[in-house]
């Protein structure tokens, strides 16, 4: 088992490409799906893609600031989930199922 054949160095760009792919999937998910829960998950995906970017850069640049920012993002995301799910539950109770387009009724 020669180590030379496994000379696959994992550079930061791998992480960044992965993060970009995840972010794109999330963004498209938000845009094309009408199910609010799925849209919600897509948003989470986008947030975590950003987290991945932060960590990748933190490691590459040897700077912990990026890791610190991830904690902030996680905290905000947790709060957002709590509020967002509460809204979704409230709407579900009223309307017995919904899609994002149903929110048009809020237009006034």
């Amino acid at each position: 088992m020669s180590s030379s054949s496994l000379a696959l160095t994992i550079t930061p760009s791998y992480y960044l490409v992965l993060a970009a792919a995840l972010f794109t999937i999330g963004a498209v998910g938000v845009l094309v799906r009408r199910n609010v829960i799925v849209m919600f998950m897509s948003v989470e995906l986008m947030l975590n893609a950003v987290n991945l970017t932060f960590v990748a850069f933190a490691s590459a640049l040897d700077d912990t600031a990026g890791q610190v920012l991830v904690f902030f993002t996680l905290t905000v995301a947790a709060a957002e989930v709590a509020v967002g799910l509460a809204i979704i539950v409230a709407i579900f109770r009223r309307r017995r199922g919904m899609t994002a387009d149903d929110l048009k009724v809020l237009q006034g």
Partner: protein
Amino acid sequence: MARDLLDFVGIVPLLPLIGAAVLLLFGKRIGEPVAGWIATGLMGAAFVWSLVMFGAMLSLPEDARSNVSVTFKWLHVDQLDVQFGFLADPLSITWILLVTGVGSLIFLYSIGYMHGDPNFGRFFAYMSLFAGSMLLLVLGSSFLLTFLGWEGVGLCSYLLIAYWFERNSAAVAGKKAFVMNRVGDVGFLIAMFILIAEFGSLDYSTMGANAMGASKAVSTAIALLLLVAAIGKSAQIPLFPWLTDAMEGPTPVSALIHAATMVTAGVFLIARAHPFFEASGDAMTVVAWVGGLTALLAGGAALLQPDIKRVLAYSTISQLGYMFLALGVGAYTAAVFMVLTHAFFKGCLFLGAGSVIEGNEENQDMRIMGRFRKFLPYTAIGMSIAWLSISGIPPFAGFWSKDSILESAYLSGDYGPWIVGLLAAIFTAGYMTRLIQLTFYGNERFRPGEAEHPAPAVSGGSDDDAATAQGAGATATLDPETDPADAIDPADTEDALGYDPDFSPTVSFVEPPRTTRLGDHDPREAPIVMVVPILTLAFLALVGGLMNIPIEGLEFLDEWLAPVFAGVQQPHPESFAQGFVLEAISVAFALVGITIALLLYRRGLRNAAADPLRDRTGPVGPTLGHAYYYDEGLAAFTDGPGTKTAVFLDETVDQRIIDGGVNGIAKLIRQGGLGLRKLQDGYVRRYAIGILLGVVALLLFLVAYVAR
């Protein structure tokens, strides 16, 4: 101590303003005669306080006789700082003494004159408001406060001319006065704008230095614009017709506003702002000529008026012309002197005329008067003194003031205004002699039988005049067919209003002599409250000259006003002999006028419809009687091209261009908004796309520009 006292000069305008407020609120309830006594009492108190101010000022050394008392900060905008302050100096103290002194006499007189008027309280409210505004005007420490008073007196003038507003001619005359004054006010406003732009200050305290440092063009512009304002307020050419129509107001109003006080505001303004006029020079010449021509032309117009008050109105315009003439030749003291003596004799004449009108059942037509001295002895004495005074006969007050003006005009080296002034002196003596002779002397023409059968008119000019009688003049009598009051019983209306709305007391030049309203009883003398002011003013018209006798040591007014006009070289006779000769010349001219008028009118009128002077002057007579057809021309112009221009400006410029532009912009924005509204359609995913695209655009921008 004296200076501390002068800080309370603001009390002077405050007193009549309090009176105005009380009477406006409760005038109806207070009623006659208490409302009149309240107003008169407050005015008298203001006079007493003015005397205190005068004493305080006298006790100060001459070079310290100027005190500004700031009440509060009025305006503060960027660099401009305007204080609400009062300026007490010899000039303003002179004026407050005049306004409150003559004012209280006229207020007292009004208690008698307005007796029985249902709106007694309202009358005194307006009069008090007027006095308060006038006092603010003269006491203001800046152009802005003066302007406030300026507008206040304009408003009160309107309210009081149109006091009998049910009478169409009075309502029209009020509006005319207001509009003509407004033309002048524009000049005042623009002058203030220039002052702010050039010096950033409206205060009088810095005015002298500002004028010194200003360029000649700026000084001339400011001076001429202030002159426009003064022309409007003081009824000079070309803005004079409103003053004769102002005779529609009650006679005390004519006396107070249109003879003694308000119309002198223009003289005050020029005297106050004299540094700009001095710095300009050219503006002074304009002032002198405006004044001289006004004195001459208005004097001519007064010669043939049949209406006693209209003669006095033209006379006022003419005398104001003299004051402007004096200002124009730099003789400020002479102008102020004339303001004072004019207030005495013209106040007396107007109050006397009021007494004649009142004692004669509202008849103002001199052609059906005559020999009133038998029935109104005190009025006759008072008015005769005023007559000699205004004509310029020594030793009456008017002689000293008019002579000092003519003397200054001669000494200024510009003989044009001097000659014009001398000619005007003939007219002055002429029309005033005619007035006195027709009213108080000659034959009796007020008996009913005599006026009912007037002989046919012999003069050539009177036939075509009748056609223009209903011409465009604002005093044209009301057409009875268009009057809604016609349907109601006239007697009821008269009871409710206190006057007959269809009856116009003013007699126009073209009207045939009126029928007497006296019935078979005689004219009667006025009550004591009216006689006392007349005789007091007559006394002042007799001795007022003592204020400024041109003999070394007796020139009190000169010395008193010297601090105000310090640094100005006022014309002064070089020797006693020179002064004496000039005096003799002006007296000679006055005597010429009196003699001619006496020869013509000594016996009164043989025929009420024919005026001897008019018969002898041919086509000149009607021209003078119509005041050179100026009013008619103005009316024709306003009716024709004026209306057309206004309609064009309204329909085309205002409605189409300006309104169209504004409405067009509004429409554009509305349409744009309606279009943009479609973007907000409520689909959350579409908003998300918007956000995404926005973020992408921002990123692209950052990459393209900022990161580079």
